[in-house]
């Protein structure tokens, strides 16, 4: 213990390229940058094999980094997936289980807190609104307390001046603080819908199909429909190739329509990538490259029509299999590609392991250093687990739908009187908005080959399905879905019937995991107020 303090002042003396002092822990002289890109599909990056030139700078970073081919995040939604990464715990253990989770609910210890113990200067420059925009819900009065949940333990916490834009201010900050030992977190929301809305006009259109006019312009005055980017208002009404208006299909999407949506999605990536380029050149010019560890990851992916929607709605690989690059100082292990799957919760243990900081015993993730070094991999988790946060049913109903009802519903849903409002429908099934928060109805277990999804209550889901609501169709849900990822990476063919023994084995593992998560549920804000019956003395 005492020994550690001998080294505290050693870091400033170490300059780039100079070999580290023997016995000086790595954390004494290593900066950390964590780039968390929202809604980024790894197969839309050059380094993961995409043909379109979306990511020359990320590709440049990847050449010096270790690339993880199968990186699985713990949820399909931003704050939940990100908190799992920051705490190295599954959502139910760290307490961040839904958008409304408050600071007091989140009990897991986060990376910035640990780094603070080791004298890091913590800064965040954010463009993902999920981490700073507190949203008050009009009807329920509930607050989505994004900022207070995430800003803890940061010395600097600066959202972009324009919502969703690139945090350009980070670059100047690096120049001004290059003498400090820092941890810099850069959550980037510029890939998230509305696709490429903040991208300057010329860059926004680079991948557009020629002479194309967006299909949705024809259909009513939707908020922002006069503009040509796509937000949730449009995306949430596309299902299985149809664009729905007023509960009936209004337009069948053409190949060009889909190409346009993807073009705008890709333009957001390209724009974000430009920032990565700027960031890398700042680090190079400031001579920080060799003393900085850079982690670039996506927070979740996006289904681009593979399962009928353009969203991060479910927990298919399109949504939870993500990009992860780790660039070590001195480009150690450069060019290495890891095929064994790793999880969001493994990032922080791996980082601390490298920095020679003791791992928190409460971590549920594990260091994957052994995978990187090709040593003993028996400690690597064979199974990855992910949970679907019922965004539509539990978040949008209370947030976006309220808003749309007020602002847009009268124009868009003229037939709404003949149907029940969606939130009312939910109330019917859940009572007044559920006290039992975050029902983990859909969870999945994944190996390098298989993925099994378990929907605990498919009948309920059929009843409350947003897609069913919007399309007026019966949506059918199965309790178990099994996919052979080697044959069917986009999970289109359920093989549960063909491989009953695989399904049974994975289901059993998944149930065990689920029970464990349930038992280990973070007590959150109620931690100390639980009823205790004191045993009488003696």
């Amino acid at each position: 213990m005492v020994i550690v303090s001998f080294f505290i002042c050693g870091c400033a003396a170490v300059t780039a390229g100079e070999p580290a002092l023997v016995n000086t822990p790595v954390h004494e002289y290593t900066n950390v940058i964590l780039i968390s890109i929202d809604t980024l599909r790894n197969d839309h990056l050059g380094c993961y094999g995409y043909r379109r030139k979306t990511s020359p700078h990320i590709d440049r970073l990847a050449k010096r980094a270790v690339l993880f081919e199968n990186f699985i995040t713990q949820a399909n939604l931003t704050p939940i997936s990100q908190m799992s990464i920051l705490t190295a715990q599954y959502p139910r253990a760290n307490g961040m289980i839904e958008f409304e989770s408050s600071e007091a609910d989140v009990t897991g210890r986060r990376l910035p807190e640990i780094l603070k113990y080791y004298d890091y200067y913590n800064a965040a420059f954010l463009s993902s609104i999920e981490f700073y925009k507190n949203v008050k819900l009009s009807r329920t009065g509930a607050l989505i307390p994004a900022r207070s949940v995430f800003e803890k333990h940061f010395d600097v916490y600066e959202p972009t001046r324009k919502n969703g834009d690139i945090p350009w201010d980070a670059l100047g900050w690096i120049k001004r603080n290059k003498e400090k030992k820092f941890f810099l977190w850069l959550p980037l929301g510029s890939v998230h819908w509305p696709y490429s809305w903040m991208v300057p006009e010329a860059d926004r259109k680079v991948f557009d199909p020629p002479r194309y006019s967006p299909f949705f312009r024809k259909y009513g005055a939707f908020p922002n429909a006069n503009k040509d980017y796509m937000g949730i208002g449009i995306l949430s009404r596309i299902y299985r190739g149809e664009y729905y208006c007023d509960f009936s299909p209004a337009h069948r999407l053409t190949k060009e329509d889909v190409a346009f949506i993807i073009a705008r999605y890709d333009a957001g990536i390209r724009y974000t990538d430009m920032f990565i380029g700027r960031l890398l050149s700042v680090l190079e010019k400031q001579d920080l490259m060799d003393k900085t560890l850079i982690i670039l990851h996506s927070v979740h992916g996006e289904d681009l029509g593979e399962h009928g929607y353009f969203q991060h709605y479910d927990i298919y690989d399109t949504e939870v299999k993500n990009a992860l690059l780790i660039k070590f100082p001195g480009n150690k292990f450069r060019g290495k590609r890891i095929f064994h799957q790793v999880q969001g919760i493994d990032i922080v243990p791996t980082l601390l392991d490298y920095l020679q900081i003791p791992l928190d015993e409460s971590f549920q993730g594990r260091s994957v250093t052994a995978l990187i070094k090709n040593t003993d991999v028996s400690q690597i988790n064979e199974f990855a687990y992910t949970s679907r946060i019922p965004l539509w049913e539990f978040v949008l109903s209370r947030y976006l739908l309220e808003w749309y009802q007020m602002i847009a519903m009268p124009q868009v849903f003229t037939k709404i009187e003949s149907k029940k409002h969606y939130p009312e429908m939910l109330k019917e099934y859940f009572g007044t908005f559920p006290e039992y928060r975050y029902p983990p109805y859909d969870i999945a277990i994944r190996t390098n080959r298989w993925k099994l999804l378990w929907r605990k209550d498919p009948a309920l889901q059929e009843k409350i399905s947003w897609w069913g609501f919007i399309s007026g169709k019966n949506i059918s849900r199965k309790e178990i879905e099994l996919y052979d990822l080697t044959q069917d990476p986009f999970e289109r063919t359920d093989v549960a019937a063909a491989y009953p023994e695989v399904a049974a084995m994975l289901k059993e593992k998944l149930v065990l995991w689920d029970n464990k998560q349930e038992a280990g549920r973070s007590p959150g804000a109620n931690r100390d107020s639980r009823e205790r019956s004191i045993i009488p003395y003696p």
Partner: protein
Amino acid sequence: MKAGIVITCSFILGCSTHGQIRSKVKIEEPPELNARFKGANVIMVSLDALQAGHVHALGYPKDVTPVIDRLMRENYNFTNAVSVSSWTVPASMSWFTGVLPSQHKVVNKFSFYDPPRQIPSRLKELSPNLITLAEILKEQGYATAAFTGGAGVSGIFGFNRGFDRYVDDVKFGSMEYTVPKALQWLKDNKDKKFFLFLHGYDVHGQCEPSEGFDYRYVSRGYDGTYTGSKKEQEALREEGLTNGKVELRQEDVDFWRAVYDEKINRLDRKLGEFLREVDDLGLMRNTILCVTSDHGTEVYEHQRFDHGFSLYEELIHVPLLIKVPAGGRGRQIGDQVSSIDIMPTILELLQIELSPVLRSQLRGISLVEAMRARTVSREVYSETDYRRYTYKRALRTSDGWKFIYTLESGEKELYNLRNDPGERNNLAEKEARLAYELEQRLFAYFKSMGRDLSGNWETGCYPVYDSQAPR
């Protein structure tokens, strides 16, 4: 009689010149402890609830413990001994099993508690594979007996395992009750090799001297209303639990310290009488004596009374002395040791070979090396699950730091015992890195025993049957 030579034992009345000569010899040539006591008798004495801080030889200003002081001066005195727990049941069970409470699992009086259903904790059911000290000694042909004040050391919890005779028929009995019975048993069994466990609640809050207090240490002008009764003590204890602390005038605090001192002084005398009788029976020269306490007592150090609910020094720093028949000349040993070390120490002194099963069971270390002046200092761990009121785990480093983690609240406490022995200044935030690292060591240690401290705390009772496991 086993030993051939009759030595006039000077152990109680040993003259001071001897002591001086010994200390000189120690400096010039450290005496090697002869640890060959195969077949020696063992007497283990538990002075229930005696705080190390109230023993004169361990630094208490008042001279309330002349007998214990002399024993400590002339034998192996562990001045930095830490109990694994702060109340009787879990702490005492660790002596006899050599494992922490989390491992023997007798951490509560009930393994299932949901009135009207209450299942008492029994070692046999909670930890069927553990071997007890008495069982080992019995197997080695020892006559085994225990004379206890009952309550927390009642045989039902599993304390009686391996004992031919286990007396626990009074509740919070003192040595006034147990010593005569123990002496009678010794007289009846003195020709056998024996293991005797002697215990008394004399200084415990729920015990009063039969003849009443004479208030020998109470200052003359005490004007308060307290009498020192167990009823008053109980009320103070419960008030402290309910309100988190008790508000008392300094005069009243002094009064309670004086009452505690009187109980200690009376116990000290009783212990002296007992040992003199043992000596008179001629048994001392072939007996290993171990005197300790299971835990201390809080007398308002942290504004509460009694024990079990915290892991502060007044509760876990305990006296521990070992006297060997011959060949060992005694030593003051400042190394930090744990109460789980007692069992392996006794077994090594008796030259009892550890079976592989036993070897893998014992979590402590033998202190024989320390008795030979080799350092054995190490990190030690304590824990308490108290009446479903609180659940605490603590680590005490060998360089004077203490980290306490409260499971139900996640509260962290870090104290620098070297300059803050009273544990008043919580440095968990100021020394966040150290607190973090100690927390990880604490968690890792309990994880190695199969107890994961992260996430939800358990309801406090260990399930005896799977169906009782918390969901």
